[in-house]
């Protein structure tokens, strides 16, 4: 079963990491990702730019464009993974491994309903 792991973290905090701290986290995360990839269990993954770069379309009539992220929360959606896991326990294990590499914040583990891998031309 596919699970989306949605990464929430305080972006002020993440933005206060030094370059070395950021690189350390990314290196540790890479190890977890590589391990999943080797088992053929890692789908698309993304690190999102800061919420300040976001815009939100509210589907009112007429639709309204708002600057900033959809939800004003203490922790923000900063990235996601799609991973193949047998069950929630296994998905939680992946999240724990990722969490050990990147402390703080929270992961929302969300089973995927339908999955379209898509195809980017570039």
């Amino acid at each position, binding site marked *: 079963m596919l699970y989306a792991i949605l990464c929430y973290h*305080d972006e*002020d*905090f993440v*933005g*206060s*990491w*030094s*370059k070395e*701290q950021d690189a350390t986290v990314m290196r540790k995360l890479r190890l977890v990702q590589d391990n999943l990839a080797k088992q053929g269990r890692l789908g698309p993954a993304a690190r999102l*730019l*800061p*919420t*300040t*770069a976001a*815009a939100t379309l509210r589907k009112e009539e007429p639709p309204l*464009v*708002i*600057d*900033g992220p959809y939800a004003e929360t*203490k922790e923000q959606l900063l990235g996601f993974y799609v991973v193949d896991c047998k069950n929630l326990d296994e998905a939680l294990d992946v999240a724990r491994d990722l969490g050990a590499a990147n*402390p*703080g914040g929270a992961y929302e583990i969300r089973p995927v309903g339908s999955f379209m891998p898509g195809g980017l031309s570039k």
Partner: protein
Amino acid sequence: MTDTAWIDAALTSARPQAVGALLRYFRDLDTAEEAFQNASLRALKSWPQNGPPRDAAAWLIMVGRNAAIDEVRRERWKAPLPEDDQAISDLDDAEEQLAERLDGSHYRDDILRLLFICCHPELPATQQIALALRIVSGLTVKQIARAFLVSEAAMEQRITRAKARIAEAAVPFETPGAVERAERLLAVAAMIYLIFNEGYSVSGDTAAARGALSEEAIRLARLLLRLFPSEPEIMGLAALLLLQHARTAARFDATGELILLEDQDRALWNQTMIAEGLALIDKAMRHRKSGPYQIQAAIAALHARAERPEDTDWRQIDLLYSALELMQPSPVVTLNRAVAVSKVKGAEAALEMIEPLAPRLSNYFHFFGVRGAFLMQLNRNDEARVAFDRAIALANTSAEAAHIRKHLDRLMRDSTPKGTKSAK
């Protein structure tokens, strides 16, 4: 989270909100800073054992406030001052009341106020920057001194002086009205840009120490944008800083010499920063409320979008500079525009454009660098040499001087230079 480096990052990110709230509470900068300092020390002891609190800023505000009140109580016990009773009972608020006073609706104005008092108009730019880095960013005096290439004692004195001047001035604690808030926002934006430039206009050998200032400016710009997410000029400011900073790795060669934009290895440009900058410009443009930061960011975006120097849309850059000239007339803007004009219409037209600037830019390094380059393109080599000599005399950094010297060397070597400015 046992590593103190992570606690440092948490303290740094909570600092503007916490110090801002404590400042509103105590209405005294030193007290607020000291309270935050005390809270930070307690955090270093408590967080590794108990884990970090969910809301680090709220924790620091509460602990800092209590520590400062204890301090006042101790002082009062030592030397009772009856007339202070009122003040003390004021400080004795129930925690719910405090929670209310520290409620999120103040968050934005707290941080804006904290930034704003650093850009008091009576403070010279260097003091504004130093103060903001100390108070808002929480850099140590030593770190700031290193970035400014002055001794720690000199920097300590500069910050103390700035603080004294601010203490004399009335700090505005009322919640600002819309017009005042907009004015504060622009003053703060200007200061953030100053911090960025302090880190950007450096020579290669000191780039590492000062580059941190540019990164800090970007962090502050993002913070400001999070507080005011719909302000196109703040989007423009953040975009401008990101697009310029994206070129950092390509700006200096191995010997620390400056590399001109058109000679830079564009593969070294940071694509993530460029993506963020372009996204912000896109958002800003939708507001159709132009401003100097947006225009400058749009110019930087045109450079970022050009895969090769010859792909640069100089005609559009010329138009953007002419818009900037109208909005913010300055000889430096005209000088920059002339570079675009030289690409579109040739060096002769560009030279004509900058001649009237000579009296006002007679001590400006870039004026003579640009003038020399135009003259060189027109094969007026003797005049070019004079201009370059003057530029070297006015150079602010060794990298700037070295760059001009390359032009001079080429003039000596090559009696009939081609029509490019490139030194490589």
